[in-house]
Protein backbone atom coordinates (compact mmCIF):
# COMPACT_ATOMS: atom_id res chain seq x y z
CA UNK A 1 0.00 0.00 0.00
CA UNK A 2 1.22 3.50 -0.75
CA UNK A 3 1.37 6.30 1.79
CA UNK A 4 -1.77 7.82 0.27
CA UNK A 5 -3.71 4.55 0.67
CA UNK A 6 -2.72 4.23 4.30
CA UNK A 7 -3.44 7.90 4.94
CA UNK A 8 -6.95 7.35 3.52
CA UNK A 9 -7.46 4.58 6.12
CA UNK A 10 -6.39 6.93 8.92
CA UNK A 11 -8.72 9.63 7.60
CA UNK A 12 -11.80 7.43 7.97
CA UNK A 13 -12.10 8.61 11.58
CA UNK A 14 -12.43 12.34 11.05
CA UNK A 15 -12.69 13.31 14.72
CA UNK A 16 -9.49 11.44 15.50
CA UNK A 17 -7.62 13.00 12.60
CA UNK A 18 -8.70 16.46 13.71
CA UNK A 19 -7.51 15.74 17.23
CA UNK A 20 -4.18 14.36 15.97
CA UNK A 21 -3.68 17.40 13.76
CA UNK A 22 -4.38 19.87 16.56
CA UNK A 23 -2.41 18.00 19.23
CA UNK A 24 0.74 18.01 17.10
CA UNK A 25 0.31 21.60 16.02
CA UNK A 26 0.07 22.52 19.69
CA UNK A 27 3.45 20.85 20.24
CA UNK A 28 4.83 22.85 17.30
CA UNK A 29 3.55 26.05 18.93
CA UNK A 30 5.19 25.13 22.21
CA UNK A 31 8.43 24.58 20.29
CA UNK A 32 8.16 28.07 18.79
CA UNK A 33 7.52 29.72 22.11
CA UNK A 34 10.44 27.93 23.70
CA UNK A 35 12.87 28.52 20.83
CA UNK A 36 12.00 32.20 20.50
CA UNK A 37 12.83 32.64 24.18
CA UNK A 38 16.47 31.76 23.57
CA UNK A 39 18.78 34.59 22.60
CA UNK A 40 21.10 33.41 19.84
CA UNK A 41 18.89 30.45 18.84
CA UNK A 42 19.80 30.73 15.15
CA UNK A 43 23.49 30.80 15.99
CA UNK A 44 23.06 27.58 17.98
CA UNK A 45 21.31 25.93 15.01
CA UNK A 46 24.05 27.06 12.63
CA UNK A 47 26.82 25.74 14.82
CA UNK A 48 24.97 22.47 15.49
CA UNK A 49 24.55 21.91 11.77
CA UNK A 50 28.23 22.73 11.20
CA UNK A 51 29.35 20.31 13.92
CA UNK A 52 27.26 17.52 12.39
CA UNK A 53 28.78 18.23 8.96
CA UNK A 54 32.26 18.09 10.50
CA UNK A 55 31.37 14.80 12.24
CA UNK A 56 30.33 13.15 8.99
CA UNK A 57 33.52 14.32 7.25
CA UNK A 58 35.73 12.82 9.97
CA UNK A 59 33.50 10.06 11.28
CA UNK A 60 35.98 7.18 11.08
CA UNK A 61 38.51 9.02 13.23
CA UNK A 62 35.86 10.12 15.75
CA UNK A 63 34.57 6.55 16.04
CA UNK A 64 38.09 5.27 16.73
CA UNK A 65 38.65 8.02 19.31
CA UNK A 66 35.31 7.27 20.96
CA UNK A 67 36.06 3.54 21.13
CA UNK A 68 39.51 4.08 22.65
CA UNK A 69 38.19 6.37 25.38
CA UNK A 70 35.18 4.19 26.16
CA UNK A 71 37.43 1.12 26.48
CA UNK A 72 39.73 3.05 28.83
CA UNK A 73 36.71 3.77 31.00
CA UNK A 74 35.86 0.09 31.28
CA UNK A 75 33.00 0.10 28.77
CA UNK A 76 32.84 -2.78 26.28
CA UNK A 77 32.44 -1.69 22.66
CA UNK A 78 30.89 -3.77 19.87
CA UNK A 79 30.41 -3.04 16.17
CA UNK A 80 27.52 -4.22 14.00
CA UNK A 81 27.32 -3.79 10.23
CA UNK A 82 23.61 -4.50 10.08
CA UNK A 83 20.52 -5.27 12.13
CA UNK A 84 21.26 -8.99 12.22
CA UNK A 85 24.72 -8.47 13.66
CA UNK A 86 23.33 -5.98 16.19
CA UNK A 87 20.70 -8.43 17.41
CA UNK A 88 23.21 -11.27 17.61
CA UNK A 89 25.61 -9.15 19.66
CA UNK A 90 22.83 -8.19 22.09
CA UNK A 91 21.73 -11.84 22.36
CA UNK A 92 25.28 -12.93 23.10
CA UNK A 93 25.76 -10.33 25.85
CA UNK A 94 22.47 -11.43 27.41
CA UNK A 95 23.38 -15.12 27.14
CA UNK A 96 26.83 -14.51 28.67
CA UNK A 97 25.10 -12.94 31.66
CA UNK A 98 22.32 -15.50 31.78
CA UNK A 99 19.87 -12.61 31.41
CA UNK A 100 16.28 -13.62 30.77
CA UNK A 101 14.44 -10.43 31.70
CA UNK A 102 15.21 -7.19 29.91
CA UNK A 103 13.87 -3.67 30.34
CA UNK A 104 14.28 -1.31 27.44
CA UNK A 105 14.06 2.46 27.22
CA UNK A 106 13.35 4.34 24.04
CA UNK A 107 15.60 3.49 21.16
CA UNK A 108 14.53 3.98 17.56
CA UNK A 109 17.58 1.96 16.52
CA UNK A 110 16.37 -1.19 18.26
CA UNK A 111 13.00 -0.64 16.53
CA UNK A 112 14.84 -0.36 13.24
CA UNK A 113 16.69 -3.64 14.00
CA UNK A 114 13.50 -5.42 15.17
CA UNK A 115 15.31 -6.43 18.34
CA UNK A 116 12.20 -7.30 20.39
CA UNK A 117 10.93 -10.16 18.20
CA UNK A 118 14.49 -11.45 17.91
CA UNK A 119 14.88 -11.66 21.69
CA UNK A 120 11.37 -12.94 22.31
CA UNK A 121 12.06 -15.84 19.94
CA UNK A 122 14.80 -16.82 22.41
CA UNK A 123 12.42 -16.78 25.36
CA UNK A 124 13.72 -13.50 26.68
CA UNK A 125 11.15 -11.12 28.17
CA UNK A 126 11.58 -7.58 26.81
CA UNK A 127 9.55 -4.77 28.34
CA UNK A 128 9.44 -1.32 26.79
CA UNK A 129 9.45 1.08 29.73
CA UNK A 130 8.73 4.46 28.17
CA UNK A 131 4.98 4.83 28.78
CA UNK A 132 4.20 5.52 25.11
CA UNK A 133 6.32 2.60 23.97
CA UNK A 134 4.77 0.36 26.62
CA UNK A 135 1.33 1.23 25.23
CA UNK A 136 2.27 0.39 21.65
CA UNK A 137 4.07 -2.77 22.79
CA UNK A 138 1.02 -4.23 24.53
CA UNK A 139 -1.13 -3.13 21.58
CA UNK A 140 1.29 -5.11 19.37
CA UNK A 141 1.91 -2.03 17.24
CA UNK A 142 4.90 0.14 16.39
CA UNK A 143 5.49 3.75 17.51
CA UNK A 144 3.72 6.23 15.22
CA UNK A 145 5.96 9.13 16.28
CA UNK A 146 9.57 9.06 17.47
CA UNK A 147 8.99 11.26 20.54
CA UNK A 148 5.28 10.60 21.15
CA UNK A 149 5.02 6.89 20.29
CA UNK A 150 1.34 6.47 21.19
CA UNK A 151 0.02 9.77 19.84
CA UNK A 152 -2.37 7.78 17.60
CA UNK A 153 -4.13 6.17 20.59
CA UNK A 154 -7.06 7.71 22.47
CA UNK A 155 -7.14 7.53 26.25
CA UNK A 156 -10.11 5.19 26.06
CA UNK A 157 -8.09 2.82 23.91
CA UNK A 158 -5.26 2.94 26.47
CA UNK A 159 -7.80 2.24 29.20
CA UNK A 160 -9.00 -0.91 27.41
CA UNK A 161 -5.44 -2.08 26.77
CA UNK A 162 -4.44 -1.62 30.41
CA UNK A 163 -7.52 -3.47 31.65
CA UNK A 164 -6.63 -6.39 29.44
CA UNK A 165 -2.85 -6.48 30.05
CA UNK A 166 -2.16 -5.13 33.54
CA UNK A 167 -5.55 -5.58 35.17
CA UNK A 168 -6.58 -1.98 35.77
CA UNK A 169 -10.14 -0.95 36.58
CA UNK A 170 -12.24 0.89 34.01
CA UNK A 171 -11.44 4.61 34.41
CA UNK A 172 -12.86 6.21 31.25
CA UNK A 173 -9.28 6.87 30.28
CA UNK A 174 -8.09 8.79 33.35
CA UNK A 175 -4.47 9.69 32.46
CA UNK A 176 -3.30 10.10 36.11
CA UNK A 177 -4.71 6.75 37.16
CA UNK A 178 -3.40 4.92 34.09
CA UNK A 179 0.07 6.47 34.35
CA UNK A 180 0.27 5.55 38.02
CA UNK A 181 -0.79 1.96 37.36
CA UNK A 182 1.85 1.70 34.63
CA UNK A 183 4.38 3.09 37.10
CA UNK A 184 3.60 0.30 39.58
CA UNK A 185 3.71 -2.36 36.89
CA UNK A 186 7.01 -1.10 35.46
CA UNK A 187 8.62 -0.68 38.91
CA UNK A 188 8.28 -4.39 39.35
CA UNK A 189 9.87 -4.99 35.95
CA UNK A 190 12.80 -2.66 36.73
CA UNK A 191 13.46 -4.38 40.06
CA UNK A 192 13.53 -7.83 38.51
CA UNK A 193 15.39 -7.10 35.27
CA UNK A 194 18.68 -8.83 34.53
CA UNK A 195 19.69 -6.33 31.88
CA UNK A 196 18.70 -2.89 30.59
CA UNK A 197 18.86 -1.72 26.99
CA UNK A 198 18.86 1.98 26.20
CA UNK A 199 19.39 4.15 23.18
CA UNK A 200 22.02 6.87 22.94
CA UNK A 201 21.25 10.53 22.27
CA UNK A 202 24.86 11.62 21.95
CA UNK A 203 28.21 9.81 22.11
CA UNK A 204 31.24 11.95 22.83
CA UNK A 205 34.46 11.07 20.99
CA UNK A 206 36.66 13.09 23.34
CA UNK A 207 35.51 11.29 26.52
CA UNK A 208 34.05 7.96 25.37
CA UNK A 209 30.88 8.80 27.31
CA UNK A 210 27.26 8.70 26.24
CA UNK A 211 24.21 10.81 27.05
CA UNK A 212 20.69 9.48 27.41
CA UNK A 213 17.77 11.92 27.71
CA UNK A 214 14.34 11.02 29.09
CA UNK A 215 11.44 12.72 30.82
CA UNK A 216 10.18 9.66 32.62
CA UNK A 217 13.44 8.50 34.20
CA UNK A 218 12.97 5.04 32.73
CA UNK A 219 16.44 4.78 31.14
CA UNK A 220 18.05 5.50 34.51
CA UNK A 221 15.74 3.20 36.47
CA UNK A 222 16.62 0.38 34.10
CA UNK A 223 20.34 0.92 33.67
CA UNK A 224 21.17 1.58 37.33
CA UNK A 225 19.17 -1.35 38.72
CA UNK A 226 20.16 -4.11 36.31
CA UNK A 227 23.60 -5.72 36.35
CA UNK A 228 24.15 -5.16 32.64
CA UNK A 229 23.52 -2.01 30.60
CA UNK A 230 23.57 -2.27 26.81
CA UNK A 231 23.37 1.00 24.85
CA UNK A 232 22.78 0.79 21.10
CA UNK A 233 23.79 3.70 18.86
CA UNK A 234 23.94 4.50 15.16
CA UNK A 235 27.37 5.66 13.97
CA UNK A 236 26.02 9.18 13.39
CA UNK A 237 25.35 9.79 17.10
CA UNK A 238 28.98 10.86 17.61
CA UNK A 239 29.82 14.43 18.58
CA UNK A 240 33.45 15.54 18.88
CA UNK A 241 33.64 17.20 22.30
CA UNK A 242 31.74 17.18 25.56
CA UNK A 243 31.31 20.96 25.42
CA UNK A 244 29.21 20.42 22.27
CA UNK A 245 26.53 18.91 24.49
CA UNK A 246 25.83 22.47 25.60
CA UNK A 247 24.67 23.16 22.05
CA UNK A 248 22.71 19.98 21.42
CA UNK A 249 20.99 19.82 24.80
CA UNK A 250 19.75 23.37 24.32
CA UNK A 251 18.24 22.38 20.98
CA UNK A 252 16.87 18.89 21.58
CA UNK A 253 14.01 19.25 24.07
CA UNK A 254 12.98 22.70 22.89
CA UNK A 255 12.61 21.37 19.36
CA UNK A 256 10.91 18.16 20.51
CA UNK A 257 8.29 19.26 23.04
CA UNK A 258 9.02 22.89 23.86
CA UNK A 259 10.58 22.00 27.24
CA UNK A 260 13.80 23.90 28.02
CA UNK A 261 15.55 20.54 28.61
CA UNK A 262 14.40 16.98 29.27
CA UNK A 263 13.82 16.08 32.93
CA UNK A 264 16.89 13.85 32.93
CA UNK A 265 20.05 14.32 30.83
CA UNK A 266 22.25 11.50 32.09
CA UNK A 267 25.97 11.39 31.35
CA UNK A 268 27.33 7.84 31.50
CA UNK A 269 31.13 7.63 31.50
CA UNK A 270 32.02 4.54 33.54
CA UNK A 271 30.08 1.49 34.65
CA UNK A 272 29.28 1.42 38.36
CA UNK A 273 31.31 -0.92 40.56
CA UNK A 274 30.38 -4.53 39.87
CA UNK A 275 28.33 -3.70 36.77
CA UNK A 276 28.84 -4.09 33.04
CA UNK A 277 28.28 -1.53 30.38
CA UNK A 278 28.25 -2.31 26.65
CA UNK A 279 27.93 -0.01 23.67
CA UNK A 280 26.90 -1.42 20.29
CA UNK A 281 27.85 0.82 17.35
CA UNK A 282 25.62 0.15 14.35
CA UNK A 283 25.90 0.96 10.63
CA UNK A 284 22.80 -0.69 9.09
CA UNK A 285 22.76 1.41 5.92
CA UNK A 286 24.17 4.62 7.37
CA UNK A 287 27.50 4.49 5.52
CA UNK A 288 25.54 3.98 2.32
CA UNK A 289 23.52 7.10 3.04
CA UNK A 290 26.84 8.84 3.78
CA UNK A 291 27.92 8.04 0.23
CA UNK A 292 24.95 9.89 -1.28
CA UNK A 293 25.98 13.49 -1.51
CA UNK A 294 22.42 14.78 -1.92
CA UNK A 295 21.07 12.88 1.08
CA UNK A 296 24.08 12.81 3.40
CA UNK A 297 22.79 15.64 5.61
CA UNK A 298 19.87 13.43 6.68
CA UNK A 299 22.43 11.84 9.03
CA UNK A 300 22.58 15.12 10.99
CA UNK A 301 19.22 14.20 12.55
CA UNK A 302 19.05 14.24 16.36
CA UNK A 303 15.56 12.63 16.44
CA UNK A 304 13.60 15.50 17.98
CA UNK A 305 10.47 14.98 15.88
CA UNK A 306 9.95 18.70 15.15
CA UNK A 307 9.57 18.01 11.41
CA UNK A 308 6.70 15.63 12.15
CA UNK A 309 4.85 18.02 14.46
CA UNK A 310 4.93 20.78 11.88
CA UNK A 311 4.22 18.72 8.75
CA UNK A 312 0.70 19.26 7.35
CA UNK A 313 0.82 15.80 5.77
CA UNK A 314 2.08 13.97 8.85
CA UNK A 315 -0.43 15.65 11.11
CA UNK A 316 -3.30 14.54 8.90
CA UNK A 317 -2.06 11.11 7.86
CA UNK A 318 -0.64 9.68 11.08
CA UNK A 319 2.73 8.05 11.62
CA UNK A 320 1.66 4.55 10.61
CA UNK A 321 0.78 5.69 7.10
CA UNK A 322 4.53 5.91 6.40
CA UNK A 323 5.04 2.19 7.15
CA UNK A 324 8.62 2.92 8.26
CA UNK A 325 10.55 2.97 11.54
CA UNK A 326 11.05 6.73 11.32
CA UNK A 327 7.90 8.39 9.92
CA UNK A 328 7.34 11.95 8.78
CA UNK A 329 9.55 14.21 6.68
CA UNK A 330 12.92 13.01 7.99
CA UNK A 331 11.81 9.38 7.71
CA UNK A 332 10.80 10.03 4.12
CA UNK A 333 14.38 10.90 3.21
CA UNK A 334 15.96 8.14 5.33
CA UNK A 335 13.68 5.25 4.34
CA UNK A 336 14.11 5.40 0.53
CA UNK A 337 17.84 4.99 1.12
CA UNK A 338 17.14 1.62 2.72
CA UNK A 339 14.52 0.27 0.31
CA UNK A 340 13.69 2.50 -2.61
CA UNK A 341 10.89 0.35 -4.01
CA UNK A 342 9.09 -0.23 -0.72
CA UNK A 343 9.28 3.43 0.29
CA UNK A 344 8.93 5.04 -3.14
CA UNK A 345 5.68 6.83 -2.25
CA UNK A 346 7.12 8.60 0.81
CA UNK A 347 8.97 11.52 -0.82
CA UNK A 348 5.63 12.39 -2.46
CA UNK A 349 3.93 12.61 0.94
CA UNK A 350 4.84 16.28 1.19
CA UNK A 351 3.61 19.62 -0.03
CA UNK A 352 7.27 20.76 -0.21
CA UNK A 353 6.20 23.74 1.91
CA UNK A 354 9.56 23.69 3.68
CA UNK A 355 8.22 23.98 7.22
CA UNK A 356 10.23 20.90 8.23
CA UNK A 357 13.50 22.50 7.14
CA UNK A 358 12.56 25.70 8.99
CA UNK A 359 12.11 23.99 12.34
CA UNK A 360 14.92 21.44 12.05
CA UNK A 361 17.39 22.20 14.88
CA UNK A 362 20.34 20.96 12.81
CA UNK A 363 19.15 22.64 9.61
CA UNK A 364 18.66 19.61 7.40
CA UNK A 365 17.30 20.74 4.01
CA UNK A 366 14.53 18.15 4.34
CA UNK A 367 12.13 19.46 1.70
CA UNK A 368 14.91 19.83 -0.86
CA UNK A 369 15.98 16.26 -0.25
CA UNK A 370 12.38 15.09 -0.66
CA UNK A 371 12.32 16.81 -4.03
CA UNK A 372 15.62 15.19 -4.99
CA UNK A 373 14.34 11.73 -4.06
CA UNK A 374 11.40 12.33 -6.38
CA UNK A 375 13.81 12.85 -9.30
CA UNK A 376 15.54 9.56 -8.46
CA UNK A 377 12.29 7.66 -7.96
CA UNK A 378 10.57 8.61 -11.21
CA UNK A 379 13.65 7.32 -13.04
CA UNK A 380 14.19 4.13 -11.04
CA UNK A 381 10.78 3.01 -9.84
CA UNK A 382 7.83 2.21 -12.07
CA UNK A 383 5.15 4.89 -11.65
CA UNK A 384 1.37 4.30 -11.75
CA UNK A 385 0.06 4.48 -15.32
CA UNK A 386 -2.55 7.18 -14.55
CA UNK A 387 0.04 9.47 -12.98
CA UNK A 388 2.46 8.83 -15.83
CA UNK A 389 -0.11 9.56 -18.56
CA UNK A 390 -1.45 12.66 -16.84
CA UNK A 391 2.04 14.08 -16.40
CA UNK A 392 2.83 13.32 -20.04
CA UNK A 393 -0.28 15.16 -21.22
CA UNK A 394 0.41 18.01 -18.80
CA UNK A 395 3.95 18.29 -20.14
CA UNK A 396 2.60 18.57 -23.70
CA UNK A 397 0.04 21.20 -22.75
CA UNK A 398 2.45 23.30 -20.74
CA UNK A 399 4.95 23.33 -23.59
CA UNK A 400 2.47 24.68 -26.13
CA UNK A 401 1.05 28.17 -25.61
CA UNK A 402 -2.00 27.76 -27.84
CA UNK A 403 -2.86 24.41 -26.35
CA UNK A 404 -2.40 25.82 -22.88
CA UNK A 405 -4.77 28.73 -23.49
CA UNK A 406 -7.32 26.43 -25.08
CA UNK A 407 -7.13 23.97 -22.17
CA UNK A 408 -7.55 26.79 -19.69
CA UNK A 409 -10.72 27.99 -21.43
CA UNK A 410 -12.04 24.43 -21.59
CA UNK A 411 -11.33 23.82 -17.93
CA UNK A 412 -13.05 27.05 -16.84
CA UNK A 413 -16.03 26.22 -19.02
CA UNK A 414 -16.29 22.70 -17.70
CA UNK A 415 -15.95 23.72 -14.06
CA UNK A 416 -18.74 26.26 -14.55
CA UNK A 417 -21.24 24.27 -16.57
CA UNK A 418 -20.46 20.56 -16.38
CA UNK A 419 -22.62 18.53 -14.01
CA UNK A 420 -21.25 17.96 -10.52
CA UNK A 421 -20.75 14.22 -10.94
CA UNK A 422 -18.32 14.88 -13.81
CA UNK A 423 -16.36 17.70 -12.19
CA UNK A 424 -16.06 15.79 -8.93
CA UNK A 425 -15.34 12.42 -10.55
CA UNK A 426 -12.61 10.17 -9.26
CA UNK A 427 -10.09 11.73 -11.64
CA UNK A 428 -10.20 15.03 -9.78
CA UNK A 429 -8.14 14.45 -6.63
CA UNK A 430 -8.45 18.15 -5.75
CA UNK A 431 -12.22 17.80 -5.45
CA UNK A 432 -12.07 15.11 -2.77
CA UNK A 433 -13.73 16.22 0.48
CA UNK A 434 -13.91 19.88 -0.56
CA UNK A 435 -15.48 22.21 -3.13
CA UNK A 436 -13.32 23.93 -5.70
CA UNK A 437 -13.33 27.74 -5.66
CA UNK A 438 -15.78 29.64 -7.83
CA UNK A 439 -14.59 29.92 -11.43
CA UNK A 440 -14.26 33.38 -13.02
CA UNK A 441 -14.83 33.94 -16.75
CA UNK A 442 -11.33 35.24 -17.48
CA UNK A 443 -7.87 33.98 -16.80
CA UNK A 444 -5.24 36.27 -15.33
CA UNK A 445 -3.80 37.19 -18.72
CA UNK A 446 -7.18 38.39 -20.03
CA UNK A 447 -8.05 40.17 -16.80
CA UNK A 448 -4.72 42.01 -16.80
CA UNK A 449 -5.07 43.16 -20.42
CA UNK A 450 -8.58 44.48 -19.84
CA UNK A 451 -7.50 46.24 -16.69
CA UNK A 452 -4.57 47.98 -18.41
CA UNK A 453 -6.74 49.10 -21.29
CA UNK A 454 -9.32 50.60 -18.92
CA UNK A 455 -6.70 52.40 -16.87
CA UNK A 456 -5.10 53.81 -19.99
Amino acid at each position, binding site marked *: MTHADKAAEFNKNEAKVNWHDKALWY*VREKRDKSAHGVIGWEHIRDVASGIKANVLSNLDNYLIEFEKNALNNGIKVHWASDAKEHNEIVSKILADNNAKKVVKSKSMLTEECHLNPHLEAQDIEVVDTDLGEFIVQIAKETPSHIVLPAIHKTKEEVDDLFQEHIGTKPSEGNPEYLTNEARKHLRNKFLNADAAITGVNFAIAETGGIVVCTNEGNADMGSHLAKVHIASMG*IEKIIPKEEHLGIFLRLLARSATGQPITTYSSLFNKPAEGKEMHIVIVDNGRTEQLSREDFRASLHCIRCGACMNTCPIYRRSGGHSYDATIPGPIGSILSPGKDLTKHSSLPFASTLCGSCSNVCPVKINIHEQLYKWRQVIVKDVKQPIVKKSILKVAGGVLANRKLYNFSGRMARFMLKYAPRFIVYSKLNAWGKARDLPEVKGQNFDQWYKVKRKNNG
Partner: protein
Amino acid sequence: MGREAILKSVKENKPTLIPLPMLDLNNFKEDINLLEEFKEKVKLVGGSLKELSSSETLENEIKKLYPNAKEIVDCSNQSTSLATVTISEGTNPKDLQNIDLAIIKGEFGVSENGSVWISENTFPIRVLPFITNDLVIILEKEKLCLHMHDAFSLISERERTFGVFISGPSKTADIEQCLVVGAQGAMSLSVFLF
Protein backbone atom coordinates in the same frame (compact mmCIF):
# COMPACT_ATOMS: atom_id res chain seq x y z
CA MET B 1 33.38 -8.34 10.65
CA GLY B 2 31.70 -5.14 11.86
CA ARG B 3 34.44 -2.81 12.99
CA GLU B 4 36.82 -2.91 10.04
CA ALA B 5 33.98 -3.02 7.49
CA ILE B 6 32.28 0.02 9.02
CA LEU B 7 35.44 2.09 9.33
CA LYS B 8 36.45 1.22 5.76
CA SER B 9 33.03 2.15 4.43
CA VAL B 10 33.03 5.45 6.33
CA LYS B 11 36.47 6.29 4.99
CA GLU B 12 35.40 5.59 1.41
CA ASN B 13 32.12 7.47 1.63
CA LYS B 14 32.82 10.50 3.76
CA PRO B 15 33.16 13.94 2.17
CA THR B 16 36.40 15.94 2.34
CA LEU B 17 37.08 17.36 5.77
CA ILE B 18 34.77 20.17 6.83
CA PRO B 19 36.24 22.29 9.66
CA LEU B 20 34.65 22.28 13.10
CA PRO B 21 32.75 25.54 13.64
CA MET B 22 33.32 27.62 16.76
CA LEU B 23 30.57 28.76 19.07
CA ASP B 24 30.61 32.46 19.84
CA LEU B 25 29.41 32.86 23.42
CA ASN B 26 28.94 36.59 22.87
CA ASN B 27 25.73 35.67 21.06
CA PHE B 28 24.17 34.54 24.33
CA LYS B 29 24.97 37.45 26.60
CA GLU B 30 21.95 38.35 28.64
CA ASP B 31 21.58 40.83 31.44
CA ILE B 32 19.28 38.83 33.68
CA ASN B 33 18.99 37.98 37.34
CA LEU B 34 20.21 34.37 37.48
CA LEU B 35 18.36 33.61 40.69
CA GLU B 36 15.00 34.94 39.51
CA GLU B 37 15.35 33.20 36.15
CA PHE B 38 16.29 29.92 37.85
CA LYS B 39 13.31 30.10 40.20
CA GLU B 40 10.95 30.74 37.33
CA LYS B 41 12.31 27.84 35.29
CA VAL B 42 12.21 25.34 38.17
CA LYS B 43 8.51 26.12 38.49
CA LEU B 44 8.01 25.90 34.72
CA VAL B 45 9.39 22.34 34.67
CA GLY B 46 7.12 21.23 37.50
CA GLY B 47 9.50 21.48 40.44
CA SER B 48 8.97 23.43 43.63
CA LEU B 49 11.49 25.83 45.08
CA LYS B 50 12.10 27.20 48.53
CA GLU B 51 14.57 29.87 49.44
CA LEU B 52 15.48 29.47 53.09
CA SER B 53 15.31 32.62 55.17
CA SER B 54 17.71 33.12 58.06
CA SER B 55 15.11 32.02 60.60
CA GLU B 56 14.22 28.80 58.80
CA THR B 57 16.14 25.56 59.10
CA LEU B 58 16.46 23.06 56.32
CA GLU B 59 15.33 20.31 58.61
CA ASN B 60 12.07 21.95 59.58
CA GLU B 61 11.23 23.04 56.08
CA ILE B 62 11.77 19.56 54.64
CA LYS B 63 9.66 18.07 57.44
CA LYS B 64 6.91 20.56 56.68
CA LEU B 65 6.93 19.71 52.99
CA TYR B 66 7.16 15.94 53.39
CA PRO B 67 5.48 15.18 56.76
CA ASN B 68 4.73 11.56 55.89
CA ALA B 69 8.17 10.52 54.67
CA LYS B 70 9.48 7.62 56.77
CA GLU B 71 12.33 6.04 54.86
CA ILE B 72 14.69 8.97 54.31
CA VAL B 73 18.20 8.99 52.85
CA ASP B 74 20.18 12.17 53.41
CA CYS B 75 23.35 12.67 51.34
CA SER B 76 23.34 16.45 51.66
CA ASN B 77 26.04 16.71 54.33
CA GLN B 78 24.04 19.45 56.03
CA SER B 79 24.01 17.66 59.38
CA THR B 80 20.27 17.30 59.63
CA SER B 81 18.84 14.48 61.70
CA LEU B 82 16.34 13.53 59.03
CA ALA B 83 18.02 10.36 57.81
CA THR B 84 16.36 7.11 58.81
CA VAL B 85 18.25 4.94 56.33
CA THR B 86 22.00 5.03 55.70
CA ILE B 87 23.47 3.80 52.47
CA SER B 88 26.99 3.25 51.14
CA GLU B 89 28.70 2.13 47.93
CA GLY B 90 28.02 -1.45 48.98
CA THR B 91 24.24 -1.04 49.25
CA ASN B 92 22.25 -3.13 46.79
CA PRO B 93 20.40 -0.61 44.56
CA LYS B 94 17.28 -2.76 44.73
CA ASP B 95 17.15 -2.21 48.51
CA LEU B 96 16.24 1.41 47.81
CA GLN B 97 12.82 0.53 46.40
CA ASN B 98 10.91 1.77 49.44
CA ILE B 99 12.76 5.04 49.96
CA ASP B 100 10.24 7.86 50.48
CA LEU B 101 12.61 10.77 50.32
CA ALA B 102 16.19 11.34 49.19
CA ILE B 103 18.08 14.53 49.95
CA ILE B 104 21.02 15.26 47.66
CA LYS B 105 23.41 18.18 47.37
CA GLY B 106 23.30 19.83 43.96
CA GLU B 107 26.59 21.15 42.57
CA PHE B 108 25.10 24.00 40.58
CA GLY B 109 21.91 25.08 38.85
CA VAL B 110 21.33 26.26 35.28
CA SER B 111 19.09 29.31 34.97
CA GLU B 112 17.99 28.80 31.37
CA ASN B 113 16.25 25.50 32.10
CA GLY B 114 15.92 25.03 35.86
CA SER B 115 18.13 21.97 35.88
CA VAL B 116 20.57 21.04 38.62
CA TRP B 117 23.77 19.06 38.08
CA ILE B 118 24.28 16.25 40.54
CA SER B 119 27.08 13.72 40.23
CA GLU B 120 28.02 10.40 41.68
CA ASN B 121 30.41 12.11 44.12
CA THR B 122 27.42 13.32 46.11
CA PHE B 123 25.31 10.14 46.25
CA PRO B 124 26.79 6.67 46.58
CA ILE B 125 24.17 4.72 44.60
CA ARG B 126 23.30 5.88 41.10
CA VAL B 127 19.66 4.88 41.16
CA LEU B 128 18.89 6.93 44.30
CA PRO B 129 17.59 10.19 42.71
CA PHE B 130 15.37 8.16 40.36
CA ILE B 131 13.99 5.41 42.58
CA THR B 132 13.13 7.63 45.55
CA ASN B 133 9.48 8.61 45.74
CA ASP B 134 10.33 12.27 46.33
CA LEU B 135 13.59 14.11 45.76
CA VAL B 136 14.99 17.16 47.53
CA ILE B 137 18.02 18.94 46.09
CA ILE B 138 19.93 21.40 48.27
CA LEU B 139 21.70 24.14 46.40
CA GLU B 140 23.74 27.19 47.35
CA LYS B 141 22.05 30.13 45.71
CA GLU B 142 25.35 31.59 44.50
CA LYS B 143 25.96 28.45 42.47
CA LEU B 144 23.97 29.28 39.37
CA CYS B 145 25.09 29.63 35.77
CA LEU B 146 23.36 31.21 32.81
CA HIS B 147 23.22 28.43 30.22
CA MET B 148 24.36 24.94 29.26
CA HIS B 149 27.60 26.22 27.69
CA ASP B 150 28.67 27.55 31.08
CA ALA B 151 27.39 24.38 32.71
CA PHE B 152 29.69 22.18 30.63
CA SER B 153 32.66 24.37 31.29
CA LEU B 154 31.93 24.05 35.04
CA ILE B 155 32.08 20.24 34.85
CA SER B 156 34.91 19.97 32.33
CA GLU B 157 37.50 19.00 34.93
CA ARG B 158 35.42 16.49 36.92
CA GLU B 159 36.23 12.85 37.41
CA ARG B 160 33.93 11.30 34.84
CA THR B 161 31.79 8.47 36.19
CA PHE B 162 28.07 9.27 36.22
CA GLY B 163 26.21 12.53 36.55
CA VAL B 164 22.86 13.95 35.56
CA PHE B 165 21.15 17.26 34.92
CA ILE B 166 17.74 17.00 36.58
CA SER B 167 15.02 19.43 35.63
CA GLY B 168 11.85 18.90 37.63
CA PRO B 169 10.09 15.68 38.64
CA SER B 170 9.68 12.74 36.25
CA LYS B 171 6.78 13.26 33.88
CA THR B 172 5.02 12.01 30.81
CA ALA B 173 2.36 13.14 28.37
CA ASP B 174 2.08 9.85 26.51
CA ILE B 175 -1.66 9.45 27.10
CA GLU B 176 -3.44 11.93 24.83
CA GLN B 177 -0.82 14.59 25.54
CA CYS B 178 -2.10 15.09 29.10
CA LEU B 179 0.82 16.03 31.32
CA VAL B 180 1.11 13.68 34.29
CA VAL B 181 3.80 14.32 36.90
CA GLY B 182 5.31 11.16 38.34
CA ALA B 183 6.24 8.68 35.62
CA GLN B 184 9.00 6.14 36.36
CA GLY B 185 11.35 8.41 38.36
CA ALA B 186 10.73 10.67 41.38
CA MET B 187 7.15 11.91 41.86
CA SER B 188 8.26 15.34 43.01
CA LEU B 189 11.37 17.51 43.05
CA SER B 190 11.92 20.31 45.51
CA VAL B 191 14.92 22.56 45.29
CA PHE B 192 16.00 24.22 48.56
CA LEU B 193 18.18 27.26 48.11
CA PHE B 194 20.32 28.47 51.00
